[in-house]
C-alpha cells in the first residue's frame, strides 16, 4: 500500500493524544518536587507515601472486594440473560428483558446512582434493610455490569453455531448437561472478557458508588476524587502508574493465555 501521509499523521496524532496524559502521569510520579509544575529530580518517594497512606489503601481494598463480587455476580446474571435472549426463542417478557438489559447501557450514571439510592432508602424505611455500604454498591454495580456482560456473551452466542447443542439434544442430553458440557466451554472466552469488563467498570466507577455508598464505605475512585478536588498530588500519579502497570500486565497475560487456547483449539 502506498504511504498515505495524512492517514499516518492522523494515526500518530491520535495515539499521541491517547498516551500523552498517561506518559505525564507516569513521569511526574517520579518527580521529587511536591510542586508538580517544576521538575525536582528523580525519586520514588511518592510510592512509599502511597503505600503507607492507609485511607487510600483501605479504599483500594474495598474497591477490589466490590469489583470482584460485582463482576462474578454480573457474569451469572448477564449470562443467564444472554442465554434467554439467544437460545429460548420467543417467550413472554422477551421484549421487557431486552429493554431491561439495554437501557442501563444508555442511562446516564447519575441517573442509575440516584435511582439505586432511592430504592435502598425506600427499602430501608420500609424493612430496615439494606444498610448502605459496600453491599449496596455491589448490588448497584451488578445491575449495571450485568448488562455489559449480556452484550458480550450474547454476541458470542449468536455467532456460535448451535448445531453442536442441537446434536447433543437429539442424542438425548438434558438441557443442563448440554449447557455444562457444550455451551459453557464454548463461551468461556467471552465469560472471561465479560468478567474483566465488569471488573474494570466497577473498579472505575465514581458516580454510582458515591450515591449508593453509606458512611465509612469508601471505594478507591471516591478516595481519589476527594483528593483530586484539593489539587494535584504526586501520590495520585504514583497510584495511576501502578494501575497502568497492573492493567497492562493483566491484559498481556489474558491476551497470551486466550491466544494460546485459541491456537491449541485450532490445532485440535
Amino acid at each position, binding site marked *: 500500500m502506498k504511504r498515505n501521509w495524512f492517514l499516518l499523521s*492522523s494515526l500518530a496524532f491520535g495515539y499521541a493524544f*491517547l498516551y500523552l496524559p498517561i506518559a505525564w502521569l507516569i513521569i511526574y510520579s517520579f518527580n521529587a518536587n511536591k510542586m508538580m509544575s517544576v521538575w525536582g529530580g528523580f525519586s520514588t518517594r511518592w510510592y512509599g507515601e502511597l503505600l503507607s497512606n492507609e485511607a487510600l489503601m483501605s479504599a483500594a481494598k474495598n474497591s477490589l472486594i466490590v469489583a470482584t463480587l460485582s463482576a462474578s455476580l454480573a457474569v451469572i446474571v448477564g449470562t443467564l440473560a444472554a442465554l434467554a435472549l439467544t437460545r429460548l426463542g420467543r417467550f413472554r417478557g422477551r421484549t421487557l428483558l431486552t429493554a431491561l438489559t439495554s437501557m442501563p447501557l444508555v*442511562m*446516564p450514571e447519575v441517573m442509575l446512582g440516584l435511582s439505586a439510592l432511592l430504592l435502598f432508602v425506600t427499602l430501608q424505611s420500609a424493612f430496615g434493610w439494606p444498610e448502605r455500604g459496600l453491599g449496596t454498591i455491589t448490588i448497584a454495580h451488578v445491575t449495571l455490569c450485568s448488562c455489559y456482560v449480556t452484550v458480550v456473551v450474547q454476541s458470542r452466542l449468536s455467532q456460535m453455531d448451535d448445531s453442536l447443542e442441537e446434536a447433543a439434544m437429539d442424542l438425548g442430553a438434558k438441557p443442563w448437561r448440554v449447557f455444562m458440557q457444550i455451551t459453557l466451554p464454548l463461551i468461556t472466552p467471552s465469560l472471561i472478557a465479560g468478567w474483566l469488563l465488569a471488573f474494570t467498570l466497577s473498579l472505575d466507577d465514581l458516580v454510582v458508588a458515591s450515591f449508593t455508598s453509606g458512611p465509612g464505605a469508601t471505594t478507591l475512585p471516591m478516595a481519589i476524587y476527594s483528593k483530586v478536588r484539593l489539587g494535584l498530588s504526586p501520590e495520585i500519579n504514583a497510584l495511576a502508574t501502578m494501575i497502568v502497570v497492573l492493567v497492562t500486565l493483566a491484559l498481556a497475560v489474558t491476551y497470551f493465555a486466550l491466544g494460546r487456547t485459541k491456537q491449541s483449539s485450532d490445532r485440535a
Partner: protein
Amino acid sequence: MNFWQLASDVVFRLFRRFEAMGAGLHRRRGRYLVVAFPMLWLSLFFLAPLLIVLKISFAEPEIAQPPYTPLVQLAAEGEYKSTLTVSTESYALIKDDDLYRAAFFNSIKTAIISTILALIIGFPMAYAIARARPDQRLILLMLVVLPFWTSSLLRTYAWLGMLKDSGIINNILLSVGVIGAPLHVLNTDWAVYLGIVYGYLPFMVLPLVATLVKMDLTLLEAAADLGCRPLKAFFKVTLPLAMPGIVAGSMLVFIPTLGEFVIPDILGGPDTLMIGRVIWNEFFTNTQWPLASAIAITMLVLIVLPLLVFEYVQNNYFSGKRRA
C-alpha cells in the same frame, strides 16, 4: 477426608442435584428459571428504582430523614381518611428557572461539539487502522482500547495537571515561543470538550473500524476506474458505507456525555453547568431530593427516550435491510 475432597464432593453433589432438577422439571420450567433470575434482578434493581425516582419527583422537599414528603399520608389517629399529595412544584421550578434550562442546553451543546470533535479525530484513525495489515490492526486496536481499562478518573486528572497555567503544555508552548502568555484552558468549556473527546475516543473508533473493515475495497477501484477522484469517491462511497459505524460511534459518545459528571466537574470551571453535575449538586449539596429526581426524569423523557426510540428504529431498519 481433607478439605478439597469435601469441597469437590459438595460441588459434585450440587451438580447432580441440579441435573436431577433439570431432568425432573418440565423443559419449559427450566427455561423459565433462566429467564426469571435476570428478569427479577433487573426489575428489582433497575426498573423499580426508576419508578421510585418518578414517585419522589412528585413529592415536596422536607427537612427530615428521608428529606421528602410522602405522597400518600396514611390516616393518623383522629383523622378519618388518607390523603394523596402530588406536587408538581419541582417540575415548575425546572420549567421556569434559567439555571436548569441552561444546564439542559449546555449539556446538549457539549455533547454535540464533543461528538463532532471525536468524529473528526476518530475517523481518520479508524480508517488507517481498518486499512492496516491484519496483524498490525490487532495491535493498533489494542492500543486504542488499552487506556479505557485504566481509571477514567485518573486520566481526567492527568489533563488537570497538563492544562494548568503552569502545566506542561503551557510550559512547552511558552519555551518554544508559540505563545507569549499561558493559555487559560482549564476551567473553560474547551477543557471539558477535550476531556470528553479524550475519554470517549475509543467508543468512536471501535464501531468505525468494525464497519470500515467490512467495506468492499473493489467498490473504490470501480469508482476510480470510472474516473471518480479519490476525494469524491470518499464522499460518494466510503462515507455512506461507514454510516452505520458513524451513527453507532456518535451515539456511544453522545449519550453518556449528556449525563457526564466527572469530566465537567474536574476540568470545567465552577460555572460549567451540565445536567449530571446539577443533579449531583441538588442531591448532595442542597439535599433537594425531589428536585434532583425531577431533573433526572426530565432528562430521561426529553433526551434519553427519544434517542432509544431512534436507535430501536434504526436497528430494525438495518437488520431488515440485511435480511432482505
